[in-house]
């Protein structure tokens, strides 16, 4: 069984309240708890939930500036504003994230090459710290704290509300293509040919294909559909699916994975297929299956996401995929895309220009952890990095190698806040910076 964190949950009932700091207690800001790793756990401490902070505060139809409380979800923002022609400028692969959680993890999406991370679209936020201070943070005010908090994994304080810039959209649909590619070189060719013309790009890769087919998959590229292109289209009826119970063992194993990946890859026979997607189907396909994580059984899974710099992306991506293919581990949920060069204000922001690979690994045993340690080494050697928001096992040394601005970040860590992630890779005794 997967380890469990002994912790208690409390809610901040109003954004005007102070942080409930009690002697000897450590807090961790908590949104929806969807982070894959231990950055949303606080063993022997308190999770301070933003669940009660779910109010909208202001929206300016002229500028697209939205102010809302920390716990407002992307789902709620989209439900409210998509019908009025506004969409979030950056969305991750699920809409079950909170506004503050998206800032704390500096989430990215399929439009990174043109839009950067979510942090690039944050105008300001209010931060409560355990010393009782309440600060407004923006590029002009408390700018260093602003930068430390974006991608700061909740370790710099508790965000109560934030103002972001929404993006005008002409429709609720995306129009584009699905392009089949037979190997990694073709992927990079399609990616290079696509990023100029398409705002959104992402690929699925068959992680079990080796040899000449290494890195084969499907490349999706799309733009928001114009009102004309979306004319007459209505949101498709989606049958809510669920994985109702936890199977006793993982349903993802060598056999099922091989079968699924082959069928899925061959499903598209033509090289290019024209597609039109509703935003839910394009951005949030997994949200349609509740409790999908249960398919991995009681041992659970590790998600791994890394990025390697553009200069070495061909060779290093090949090395990573070969390592995974030879281990015969992995899952059908494999995402590959290229990040652009737009820099996030976040000190610990994950994306850098290059190629990023994200995939699930059902936990088989020590071999799974060993594989990820080998991947870490390849990534570190290449000058890349691993995404903390999804990590549950990287070493302190790896983390320090991946994030050279860590020493700057430490100065802004709130001594009253910790997470299992920070204890693991940053160390309790080193947090007394403020």
């Amino acid at each position, binding site marked *: 069984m997967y380890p469990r964190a002994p912790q208690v949950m409390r*809610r901040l*009932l*109003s954004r*005007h309240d102070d942080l409930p700091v009690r002697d000897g207690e450590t807090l961790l800001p908590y949104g929806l708890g969807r982070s894959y790793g231990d950055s949303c756990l606080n063993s022997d401490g308190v999770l301070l939930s933003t669940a*009660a902070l779910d*109010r*909208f*505060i202001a*929206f300016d139809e002229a500028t697209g500036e939205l102010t809302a409380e920390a716990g407002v979800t992307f789902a709620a923002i989209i439900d*409210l504003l998509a019908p009025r022609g506004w969409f979030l400028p950056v969305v991750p692969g699920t809409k079950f994230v909170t506004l503050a959680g998206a800032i704390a993890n500096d989430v990215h999406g399929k439009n990174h090459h043109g839009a950067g991370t979510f942090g690039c679209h944050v105008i300001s936020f209010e931060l409560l710290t355990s010393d009782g201070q309440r600060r407004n943070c923006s590029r002009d005010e408390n700018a260093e704290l602003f930068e430390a908090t974006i991608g700061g994994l909740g370790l710099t304080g508790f965000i109560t509300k934030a103002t972001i810039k929404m993006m005008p959209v002409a429709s609720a649909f995306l129009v584009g293509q699905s392009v089949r590619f037979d190997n990694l070189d073709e992927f990079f060719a399609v990616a290079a040919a696509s990023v100029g013309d398409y705002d959104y790009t992402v690929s699925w890769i068959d992680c079990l294909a080796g040899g000449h087919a290494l890195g084969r998959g499907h490349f999706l590229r799309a733009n928001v559909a114009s009102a004309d292109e979306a004319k007459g289209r209505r949101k498709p009826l989606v049958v809510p699916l669920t994985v109702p119970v936890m199977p006793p063992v993982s349903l993802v194993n060598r056999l099922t994975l091989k079968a699924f990946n082959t069928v899925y890859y061959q499903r598209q026979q033509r090289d290019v297929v024209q597609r039109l997607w509703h935003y839910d189907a394009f951005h949030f396909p997994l949200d349609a299956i509740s409790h999908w994580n249960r398919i991995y059984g009681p041992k659970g899974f590790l998600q791994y996401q890394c990025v390697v710099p553009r200069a070495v992306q061909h060779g290093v991506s090949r090395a990573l995929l070969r390592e995974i293919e030879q281990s015969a581990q992995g899952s059908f949920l494999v995402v590959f895309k290229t990040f652009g060069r737009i820099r996030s204000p976040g000190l610990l922001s994950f994306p850098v220009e290059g190629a990023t690979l994200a995939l699930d690994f059902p936990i088989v045993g020590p071999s799974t952890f060993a594989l990820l340690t080998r991947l870490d080494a390849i990534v570190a050697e290449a000058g890349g990095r691993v995404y903390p928001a999804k990590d549950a096992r990287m070493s302190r040394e790896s983390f320090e190698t991946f994030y050279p601005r860590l020493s700057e970040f430490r100065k802004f860590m709130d001594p009253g806040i910790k997470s299992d992630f920070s204890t693991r890779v940053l160390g309790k005794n080193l947090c007394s910076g403020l």
Partner: protein
Amino acid sequence: MQRIVIFGGTSGIAEATAREFAKAGASFILVGRNPQALADICADLKLRGAASAESRIADLSDVAVLPALCKDIHNDMGIVDVALIAHGVLPGQPRVNDLDMETYDLLQVNVVSPCLLMVGMLHIFRAQGHGHLVVLSSVAGDRGRPSNYFYGAGKAFLSTLGEGMALESIGSKVRVLVVKPGFVDTKMTAAFKKGALWASASDVGAAIFKAVSRGKNGVIYTPRFWQLIMLVVKNAPAFIVRRM
């Protein structure tokens, strides 16, 4: 456009219900004690589609002012289509040997105040010829249980009062809805351990919106499975109920 007054506007269930009506473009007066919280909720409701939302600061435990408050609100709104009475507290069970002012205050807030507002608003609705009176009661009123019979007795009073008013209103355009939620995850119940029977405030809010939209007159349990649970509980023998 529906014109709605909510007494106890910062209640979790009231806010969730208001969000549903806001989506449909309603206009609101929210009555409560906390100006900041009410202002926050009003801003949120307007963003969600409310035609207007204003707060009215009043201490609803000050029962002497309630009849005048009802009249003022009616004058301000012109017509009131829906009145939701949602205020109340969930205290620990008072011990019978220290029946003191705290118990009196509890009865004032949970019983006398909503009772006067129900009477006041019903009177207004009858005079204007229509209106939907909605009162938040609780499944706790269906049976006296050792753990919370003071709270339960207050809710029983409201349920019975509301049911009587509903039956009396048959044949008119006035409706009275008694809402009996089960366990609901709100700030009132923040300290409780939550299990499978717990519903979210937004589930209950959606159920109330649906019932009002359909012109429901009478009693609803929400979520609906509580009707079945309470049927069993109401008929359960004493030796079981005393352990609940």
